[in-house]
């Protein structure tokens, strides 16, 4: 054991000695800060971690409070799922990309939908102009979904779908495709993002106001707990909050505050916490400050476990575990000298792995310029494979535990997150805090401060505000053929001519009745999807009943 008094004296002597020599050997700058602008001390010693009780605060992997990870052997058992987010253009094109990725060794699919799909408009809607197939694949009906997963056995892959406001419709399509493949819903593995609250504050693909949106979410929880038991019904996302400019602590705090709101809504809807909580999953960002990011993941697990156990009285250990997907930080990529992004992504990958992620998407180097090409997607995937197989980071569990610095950072992020959560509670919870614009304001202030630090040069971004070079414009970027919009519109026209319209009308009427009443919306949506009602038609019916969300902007 350390003699804490002696260590303390030693640390003081060290600081005093350094202060004396600073005149001759000054440090690079006056204030050292983390990537999120939190102060960093010169040296961390046992004094900084003296208040930590190992068994209470850190514990063992696979045990409460899960600071060291949710599985007992972590990556010694199996690597994280290497899951590359992909999708663009038509279902046919995306299907090809998925098959390419599976051949290259990805172990899970991650579907990107285009914006009209994410906002519940068909490809031929006026607002869809110019957007069809751009940031993801265009899905208008079950017919497109059948093509998207053609030749991909849905009982063998796990599929993550980045879909929120119309999540129930896309999940219903997935279930329907599986059924056609002869795969029962109980055999399906995967995730829908289904996290509307962060759409309001950071990502913008909302449709309905908070109240009906929360109901759609709890309907999915209830339906899946019985019918699709292995499905992750939500991926509570800090990723986009961070991309919108938040700090690491805010990312943890606002994500978990959203999580609290979902749990409360589900409990209020009559569900037992242990029936749905084990299927809640999370989605975080990985930025460049390696140690702060690792600490962030560790703190998030601890905060969530404590909340679920103490505040919500969950009894099932699976309810306490914060399982998460990670994506490397899109906003950290530079358009300048894009090859440098490979290095950034490597650091971020290491952060996610040292932080104990369950799955990971690595960004491609060209994403600040356009959609990634196959070559750059391959490098991104290889980055994960190098960290997995060559770096040694996956050979032991939570290798950074016990670092005075990392444990101090973990404590700090936990404390900051808990203080934000208390503030949000005092405002009446996440939904109210969002309605008041509080969360948006906090994120924007951080985003603006970051931008000003970059512009003043206080924060160096290599290749962008320092070490610039003259560059030729990058070549060979991926382009989506603008014809996709017309193709989808033609497909829709043919579909509407071919399908049994009476059946569609009846199915849509049933969706409307369920929306206006209180019945679970999943069964009528599934029936409507199977009748080849389009995504836009189903969402329009719900728009009619629920109304549309109006953005709350505080600048």
């Amino acid at each position, binding site marked *: 054991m350390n003699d804490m008094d002696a260590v303390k004296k030693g640390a003081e002597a060290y600081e005093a000695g350094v202060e004396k020599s600073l005149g001759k050997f000054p440090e690079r700058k006056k204030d050292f800060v983390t990537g999120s602008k939190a102060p960093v001390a010169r040296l961390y010693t046992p004094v900084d971690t003296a208040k930590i009780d190992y068994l209470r605060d850190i514990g063992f992997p696979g045990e409460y409070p899960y600071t060291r990870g949710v599985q007992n052997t972590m990556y010694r058992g199996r690597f994280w799922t290497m899951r590359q987010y992909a999708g663009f253009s038509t279902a046919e094109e995306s299907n090809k990309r998925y098959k390419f990725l599976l051949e290259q060794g990805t172990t899970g699919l991650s579907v990107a939908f285009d914006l009209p799909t994410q*906002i519940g408009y068909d490809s031929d809607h006026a607002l869809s*102009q110019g957007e069809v197939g*751009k940031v993801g694949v265009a899905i208008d009906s079950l017919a497109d979904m059948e093509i998207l997963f053609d030749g991909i056995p849905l009982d063998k892959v796990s599929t993550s779908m980045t879909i929120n406001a119309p999540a129930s419709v896309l999940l219903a399509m997935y279930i329907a495709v599986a059924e056609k493949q002869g795969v029962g819903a109980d055999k399906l593995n995967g995730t829908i993002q289904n996290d509307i609250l962060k759409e309001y504050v950071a990502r*913008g693909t909302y449709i309905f106001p908070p109240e009906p949106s929360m109901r759609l979410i709890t309907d999915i929880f209830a339906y899946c707990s019985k019918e699709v038991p292995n499905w992750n019904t939500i991926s509570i996302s800090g990723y986009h909050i961070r991309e919108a400019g938040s700090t690491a602590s805010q990312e943890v705090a606002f994500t978990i505050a959203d999580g609290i709101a979902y749990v409360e809504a589900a409990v209020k809807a009559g569900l037992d916490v242990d029936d749905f909580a084990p299927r809640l999953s999370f989605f975080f960002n990985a930025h460049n400050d390696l140690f702060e990011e690792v600490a962030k993941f560790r703190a998030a697990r601890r905060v969530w476990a404590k909340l679920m156990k103490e505040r919500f009285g969950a009894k099932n250990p699976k309810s306490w575990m914060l399982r998460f997907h990670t994506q490397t930080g899109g906003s950290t990529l530079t358009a300048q000298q894009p090859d440098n992004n490979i290095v950034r992504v490597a650091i971020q990958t290491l952060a996610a792995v040292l932080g104990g992620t369950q799955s990971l998407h690595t960004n491609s180097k060209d994403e*600040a*310029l356009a959609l990634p090409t196959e070559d750059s997607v391959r490098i991104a995937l290889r980055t994960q494979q190098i960290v997995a197989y060559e770096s040694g980071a996956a050979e032991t569990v939570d290798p950074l535990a016990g670092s005075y610095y990392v444990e101090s950072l973990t404590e700090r992020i936990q404390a900051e997150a808990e203080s934000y959560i208390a503030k949000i509670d005092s405002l009446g919870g996440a939904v109210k805090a969002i309605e008041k614009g509080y969360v948006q304001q906090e994120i924007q202030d951080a985003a603006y401060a970051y931008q000003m630090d970059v512009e003043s040069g206080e924060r160096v971004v290599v290749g962008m505000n320092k070490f610039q070079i003259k560059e030729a414009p990058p070549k060979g970027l991926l382009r989506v053929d603008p014809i996709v919009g017309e193709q989808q519109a033609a497909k829709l026209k043919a579909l509407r001519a071919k399908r049994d319209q009476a059946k569609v009308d009846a199915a849509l009427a049933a969706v409307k009745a369920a929306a206006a009443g209180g019945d679970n919306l999943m069964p009528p949506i599934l029936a409507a999807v199977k009748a080849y009602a389009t995504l836009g038609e189903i969402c329009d019916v719900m728009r009619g009943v629920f109304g549309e969300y109006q953005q709350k902007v505080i*600048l």
Partner: protein
Amino acid sequence: MERKIRVLVAKPGLDGHDRGAKVIARALRDAGMEVIYTGLRQTPEQIVGAAIQEDVDVVAMSILSGAHNHLFPRVVDLLKEKGVDDVLVIGGGVIPDDDIPGLKAAGIAEVFTPGTPTSVTIDYIKQNLKRKA
């Protein structure tokens, strides 16, 4: 009284990534300009209607979804249709370099790609206003 530079900051299309638009709105405000902010999901028609009614000097648009080649020129065309020729139209977002000449030919005065300091945009606006006091 001194002439205030009025800027419409708009997000055309469906993409919800408004971090850049909000940061630039604040930076323009801090540079003493009056910023009319429209929020997300604006059609070119709405942007042009607002630009005319607000009598802005500048229309600044941001798109990260890749729909810029469709939506930016549409705004310029609609302004022309309405007889507006003295408004500076600029764009920003994830825009490949290859697209920039085409956008400029379509009447987008300047395109700002990721990493552009807000001060560059501010200076550009101050030096390139089509209307003088």
